[in-house]
């Protein structure tokens, strides 16, 4: 009976989160990413060229994973859905402006950073085409920050934290939160490089842009970390098998037999 009650609570929790995600997304303001046409052509091309090798590498690791373990496709879809949802959430922040999480940390830890360069780019493409958020010319730059730099940071931070503290939840939280911060730091660098200030040059511009994004982003980074841990907890509770396949959990639990 108690077990049944527990599962009701879990279901309610899932419904609650889904509902919160849907309702929270309603604010129609623009946020984040470099807008269409707002990088000079040279820089726009440059970031495209930087991004494409990562995209190709991501496609390869994506096909390799799905060929070796077709049962992981569902988990892959979950990682994609997670970024898809989180990038739709414009959350108000202490600076009085809105921004959104990226959600790339979860997938990067689960599947490695390469996979996220594909999934992240798909989310960016969707938003650029349908929502006039971000843009096609700036897609390369935005993908480098959100789909390459963030996931790589998440992957590295997760493994570093895990080795130092052996606490998986903490590692997951830090990976997601810091990846989010880094994404917007990279965006600031990209803008600063393209628009150096008359006096003070790139550094002065960087301080300016980073001031806009970074402070807004801190509470959002924390939110992103918490939401990532939430999904991670569900996975750890309900899908040990896949996590074992991905070597994220040591195969010591006896319930592995099929």
């Amino acid at each position, binding site marked *: 009976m108690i077990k049944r009650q527990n599962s009701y609570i879990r279901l309610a929790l*899932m419904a609650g989160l*889904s509902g919160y995600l849907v309702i929270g997304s309603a604010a129609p303001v623009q946020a984040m990413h470099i807008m269409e046409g707002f990088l000079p052509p040279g820089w726009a091309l440059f970031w495209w060229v930087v991004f494409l090798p990562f995209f190709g590498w991501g496609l390869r690791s994506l096909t390799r994973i799905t060929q070796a373990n077709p049962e992981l496709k569902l988990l892959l879809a979950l990682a994609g859905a997670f970024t898809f949802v*989180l990038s739709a959430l414009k959350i108000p922040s202490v600076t009085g402006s809105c921004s959104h999480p990226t959600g790339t940390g979860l997938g990067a830890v689960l599947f490695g950073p390469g996979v996220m360069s594909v999934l992240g780019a798909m989310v960016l493409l969707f938003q650029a085409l349908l929502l006039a958020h971000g843009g096609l010319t700036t897609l390369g730059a935005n993908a480098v920050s959100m789909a390459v730099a963030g996931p790589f940071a998440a992957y590295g931070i997760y493994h570093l934290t895990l080795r130092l503290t052996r606490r998986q939840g903490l590692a997951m939280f830090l990976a997601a939160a810091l990846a989010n911060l880094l994404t917007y730091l990279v965006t600031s660098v990209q803008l600063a490089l393209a628009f150096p200030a008359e006096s003070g040059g790139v550094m002065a511009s960087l301080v300016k842009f980073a001031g806009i994004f970074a402070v*807004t982003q801190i509470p959002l980074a924390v939110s992103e970390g918490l939401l990532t*841990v939430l999904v991670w907890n*569900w996975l750890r509770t309900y899908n040990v098998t896949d996590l074992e396949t991905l070597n994220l959990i040591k195969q010591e639990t006896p319930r592995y037999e099929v």
Partner: protein
Amino acid sequence: MKSNKPNNWLLVLAVLALAATPLLLVRNAEFGGADDRAKAAITEIQPQYQPWFQPLFEPPSGEISSLLFASQAALGAGLLGYVIGLYKGRSESNSQSHSQISPQTHSQNPPK
């Protein structure tokens, strides 16, 4: 497994609190997008800069764009809930079939 539950509630509460407090604390703010501020900063640094490319499609109104954003979140959240629910069902039916070794569980099934 059991220790996760209160933990999860706290996570949800913390996220809600983080989103709600700015609305309560920062009263007279516009809550516009951070990239609009970036746009303003760009024109401040280089007043003559003109965006050289326009979005191919722009949502004709705030309502339409909120519709699109809401559908994006709905699609993602729906898929997320489906996958987690599937995993949960799977793990529950697994643990049930393990406990079915005892004859008691058989007699609990109502006859059809």
